[in-house]
């Protein structure tokens, strides 16, 4: 699940939360510009597949769940995370990727804390219907509850 380059000791770490959209690309670009300014910096590209252990599923969906999970991880890795990490390493950055299932805000924060990251960079969520207007987006939730500084790229 994780990609690791073989550069030396890191002194700073930034978690970049991607969502597969163009706004995620802006977050990645901003993180690169930040990393450029730091002498030694590791970029952790994180993609969280929204999932709740409390969602209701049919018996048939349950039986297919493991297969779907593998497909979801594979799709996230091949379409979003690996291209992003490859692009970063090609540009000379130290980078690795992480794909997880769960609550986006909670997990981005947890990844940052677990990896000793100094900050999280995410994009402003541009897509959102009625539900997100009422209950807020993952970005809003992250800003409210994160244990490390969060930069939201517009």
């Amino acid at each position, binding site marked *: 699940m994780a990609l690791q380059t073989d550069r030396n000791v890191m002194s700073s770490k930034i978690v970049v939360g991607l969502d597969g959209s163009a706004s995620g690309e802006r977050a990645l670009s901003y993180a690169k510009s930040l990393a450029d300014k730091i002498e030694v910096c590791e970029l952790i590209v994180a993609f969280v*597949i929204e*999932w709740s*252990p*409390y*969602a*209701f*599923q*049919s*018996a*048939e969906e*349950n*039986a*297919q*769940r*493991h*297969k779907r*999970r*593998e497909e*979801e*991880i594979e799709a996230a890795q091949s379409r979003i995370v690996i291209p992003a990490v490859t692009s970063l390493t090609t540009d000379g950055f130290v980078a690795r990727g992480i794909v*997880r*299932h*769960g609550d986006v805000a909670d997990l981005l924060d947890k990844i940052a804390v677990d990896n000793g990251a100094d900050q999280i960079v995410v994009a402003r969520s541009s897509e959102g219907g009625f539900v997100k207007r009422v209950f807020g987006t993952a970005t809003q939730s992250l800003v409210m509850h994160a244990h490390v500084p969060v930069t939201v790229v517009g």
Partner: protein
Amino acid sequence: MKSVFAALVGLILTASAALAQDEAKGLDQVVNEWFAALTGPFVTFIFAPLPFTSFPWIVLWLVIAASIFTVYFGFIQVRGFIHSIRLVKGDYSDPDDAGEVSHFQALATALSGTVGLGNIAGVAVAVGIGGPGATFWMILAGLLGMASKFTECTLGVKYRNEYPDGSVSGGPMYYLQKGFAERGMPGGKFLAVLFAIFCILGALGGGNMFQANQAHAQISGITGEFPGWITGLIFAAVVFAVIVGGIKSIAKVTEKVVPIMGVLYVGVALIILMVNYDQIGWAFGQIFTGAFTGLGVAGGIVGALIQGFKRAAFSNEAGVGSAAIAHSAVRTKEPITEGYVSLLEPFIDTVVICTMTALVIVISGQLVTDPETGLYVLNEAGTAIQTVGDTSGVALTSAAFATGLSWFPYLLAVAVILFAFSTMISWSYYGLKAWTYLFGEGKVSELIFKLIFCVFVVIGAAASLGPVIDFSDAAIFAMAVVNIAGLYVLMPIVKDELASYLGRLKSGEIRKFAH
């Protein structure tokens, strides 16, 4: 295998022929007569009384099994209750396994297959025939049944089939075959095939016809009488769209709405009970007294006991084996954890929800009593307690709830339709797994079963409650006959799993995860 298949196809053809022959009688009547005649011998055998008594052997079979499992596993439903809740909360779930089926999801899926008409109509049938005392036996059956579920669901996970593409198939068919082989016992394959046949019948009966039948009763109770086959055709079309057409949006909506309906149903029951709080003590008194004196109901104490155990088994399906199919989808490293989680099902389904329904019916005064003796008055046929408005089944529950909230029948109608639909979808899966076990996985084989399933929706809605409920009970209990016979042989395996798990839990090898 082929003969089973031929018999089932023959069943459909016979139905079609009978229908074509006698249109003058009215479609519902023809369906009813044909169905009662065809299923009669099977029903008679399953509910045959023990020699020199009126006590059905099948009820004793279930009670003894649940009691044996309870003692054999050291009252696991009591000492494992808190641990079960911790498992469902995810305290022991590895965060790295996020995205797999959670314990909560497995529990919710299995519950959506059991919570439904059994809790609404089944309880009314039990209380209507067996009196309030039936509730006591129902609760007892629910508590004992927790141990049966624990046993079968542990085995369901342990012996499931995992395919190269990551999908799984599990259930009694698989643990009977593999478990017996592992213990060096003969007959596992035979029992597995027998179980699969009964599971198909159970899916078509209790998981389908009973649901369609009661959904029609509820709709016609509000709109006025109209032929059942019309409701059947509409239901069949929707079920067809989901299970054959793969239209997941309908199933998705149901999955979201059914839990809300469940919570709403319990909520309304609680409100009615709170408003009538001063009668709760009296109602429990009726339940307890009725359990040991009969209070004048048909069949006395034995009648109450039989109804209580029958309806509890039909509602929570403990020992039936269906839950083992639903739970086998969880990719846990510890099969016993699914056993723990599943033991909550009879508790939620029977001990909590069924008891609430029964209390509301008793408190509502829908059951007619003799003011002088205090005993219940039987109907003209002497088969059940006379009710205000001569209601039974779901109509009795509806009338009872309406005494507290007049608009409730409308909500209940929607709830019944959704419960019926979600139970049908769940059972179509259980039946399908049994079918593919017998005839192999494959699109054509699966399609045949799904089409048969849809035909039975129409038959179920058109037939009258008596034959449908008898066949539904008989088919589901037949599953329990085979499943429990297998569980006796395989329970030492579960005991070993339990001992190993508890040992590692105590040593700290299995620990809670920080979330």
